[in-house]
């Protein structure tokens, strides 16, 4: 009950904070605003223009202009031979795309959401990821699987799962998760140019969000390196590692933490596999505290892997146990209140310094519903 009152208070204060947030983001000379949708569309357009071997395949990518309008205008520009509408047969068309990649052309396969990729997961893992290894380098698979991943709004359990951990556990795949428009453009272009199978995890709720983009980002040769995380916000007290939409939440949390004198460093992972362990470890060695944030199911997740990596490499540097914030360990419910509880929310911040003999514990404001022990009342 009290929590709800606190929540309402924070939401009001957040509304005041939000305009300030975009100014504080550290991008190079922000000239233009671009939505993630526009970023993805322009990246596809430019890569198709640059390389005639690149083609698109997926449900509704052509005449419908894309289920989420990511591929808008591409059918008109490149024709039905390069933008192919498929029947609703993920296993079949993914297999066909992988076979085409064996031959040497470069498919970009869209899954309407990654939930449907489970129908095709045998081809992604067994036919795509492992083939370069099994053939000892004779047959590479230059394919990109892209589409929205994770929770949307009110779409229920079968349409809300995040697949980052599943795909990222498989050697042979590269798994990318953009946050901003710059990420979307740079990582998609890098993925299309990459000779290995790339799983590109977008987020439906980010498609409409606008981010400033510099001229460098707008250039058609712009590309981001795969396997490198980005420090979105420098800090010294605690490291928050997140990917996709949670980066935005982490940044919001960092703003409010600042008011309490806690300087959080926010890392945008960008690449789930390969994971940029060195950036995360270097950051934790500086701040001595780590919180991982993801929207996905907690068990065996990305946060678990990051925690293991820190424990292996930087254990002595930790001043407190690694805190893991993730979605609830339940299938996604439909009711709005339950759904809100099932994913991390930015509710309000407080910090608690608990002098518990050995360590200083800092809790930050990203809330995980089931773990009420995260709330320690002052």
């Amino acid at each position, binding site marked *: 009950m009290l929590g709800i009152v606190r929540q309402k208070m924070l939401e009001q204060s957040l509304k005041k904070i939000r305009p300030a947030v975009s100014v504080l983001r550290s991008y190079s000379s922000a000239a233009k605003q671009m939505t993630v949708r526009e970023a993805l569309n322009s990246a596809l357009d430019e890569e198709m223009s640059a390389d005639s071997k690149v*083609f698109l395949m997926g449900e509704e990518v052509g005449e419908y202009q894309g289920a989420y309008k990511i591929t808008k205008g591409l059918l008109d520009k490149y024709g039905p*031979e390069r933008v*192919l509408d*498929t*029947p609703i*047969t993920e*296993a*079949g*068309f*993914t*297999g*066909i*795309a*992988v*076979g*085409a*990649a*064996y*031959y*040497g*052309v470069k498919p970009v396969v869209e899954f309407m959401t990654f939930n449907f990729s489970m129908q095709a997961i*045998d*081809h992604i893992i*067994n*036919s795509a990821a492992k*083939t*370069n*290894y*099994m*053939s*000892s*380098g*004779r*047959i*590479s698979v*230059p394919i990109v699987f892209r589409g929205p991943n994770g929770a949307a709004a009110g779409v229920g359990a079968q349409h809300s799962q995040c697949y980052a951990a599943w795909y990222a556990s498989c*050697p*042979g795949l*590269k798994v990318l998760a953009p946050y901003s428009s710059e990420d979307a453009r740079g990582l998609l272009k890098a993925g299309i140019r*990459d*000779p*290995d199978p790339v799983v590109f995890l977008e987020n439906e709720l980010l498609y409409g969000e606008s981010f400033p983009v510099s001229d460098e980002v707008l250039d058609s040769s712009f590309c981001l*390196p*795969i*396997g490198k995380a980005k420090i979105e916000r420098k800090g010294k007290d605690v490291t928050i590692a997140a990917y996709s939409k949670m980066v935005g939440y982490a940044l919001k949390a960092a703003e409010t933490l600042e008011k309490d004198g806690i300087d959080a460093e926010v890392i945008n992972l960008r690449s789930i596999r*390969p994971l940029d*362990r060195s950036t995360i470890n270097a950051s934790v060695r500086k701040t001595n505290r780590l919180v991982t944030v993801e929207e996905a199911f907690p068990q065996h997740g990305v946060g678990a892997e990051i925690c293991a990596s820190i424990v*292996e490499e930087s254990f002595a540097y930790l001043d407190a146990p690694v805190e893991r914030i993730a979605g609830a360990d339940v299938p996604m419910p439909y009711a709005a209140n339950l759904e809100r509880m099932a994913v991390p929310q930015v509710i309000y911040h407080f910090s608690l310094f608990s002098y518990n003999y050995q360590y200083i514990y800092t809790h930050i404001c990203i809330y995980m519903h089931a773990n009420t022990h995260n709330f320690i009342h002052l």
Partner: protein
Amino acid sequence: MALSRLASSSSRSADLLKPLCSAISLRRPISTDTTPITVETSVPFTSHQCDTPSRSVQTNAKELFTFFRDMALMRRMEIAADSLYKAKLIRGFCHLYDGQEAVAVGMEAAITKKDCIITAYRDHCTFVSRGGTLLEVFAELMGRQAGCSRGKGGSMHFYKKDSNFYGGHGIVGAQVPLGCGLAFAQKYSKDEAVTFALYGDGAANQGQLFEALNISALWDLPAILVCENNHYGMGTAEWRAAKSPAYYKRGDYAPGLKVDGMDAFAVKQACTFAKEHALKNGPIRGKSLSLVEAIKLTSSCSVCCAYMQILEMDTYRYHGHSMSDPGSTYRTRDEITGVRQERDPVERIRKLILSHDLATEKELKDIEKEIRKEVDDAIAQAKENPLPESSELFTNVYAKGLGVESFGADRKEVRAILP
């Protein structure tokens, strides 16, 4: 007239057939005579939604000898693999193709290396027909560096991209959409070639096959699906697995052909027909996908009984599903012996060669001896070949490793940077 020409050519070939002393020489004593010979296929073709090709197949002495030699080589190779497996030099899975050689050899004779072939895990002989060497086969089976996948693939993962052979797949049925994808890429690249996607009667019920078939027909892909119906999906006879084992009809709107897969010439004729059909009809909406079913008929069945739903006689693979399967729990030894006596593909060619007076019994036996030696030499060479270096554990995970770090089982001790 023709007979005398044949006689003179056979004496020429007799000279060529004298056993060669050099152990490393691989020059084959085949007749180079290309005078046309016409042979009849064992049974007429049965079709679905298309015309049947003629039963008369054009061939020549050269091709007959090539067929004989290639199939005898494959036969010998598979039997040798059986021994190696029992000697524990080959580990894991080993699916042998003996009995089915006519499909690999007949298909290869109908196409070029520009055409693609993809198959499942029973791939040793298909790999050889695409130009793979015996050393590459045995070394890969034994997990050595000289293997076609440098020892990292194993029996089920042979590839030869320069000959457009795309494997070698362990997941039943997955190779069919992959094969349609190859056809897609050929069409996309305007390559004027076709893809043969082979699968078994066990895989014929896979959903992804029908998904791929639907898309291939919709998009007019130059794909030819080949069901190697050896009548057993592992231990399950076809009638227990398929409501409709008329696999050549399962394509519905797609044309189909039923072929005697123990007859290399029938296979060759059908593949030629299918390739022509695919390339001719490719760009036009309609019947662009051919479904070719290779069926190995048993001896006791009369010609009109084209489907083998009832009998449990194994004809295609003399071995069981794999080396772990004795192959005799779900079928009788009589069935196997019967097929071997009546319909063996190598024997068929031998009889053809003998009946056309192209060689004597002894000359053919000499070829087989030579083949045996070739196989033994390759095995000896493969046995000498080293296992891969430890560093190979971490190579080829990616085509472009980006310098990321990878870990072995002991994360502190065993680490590598992926190149």
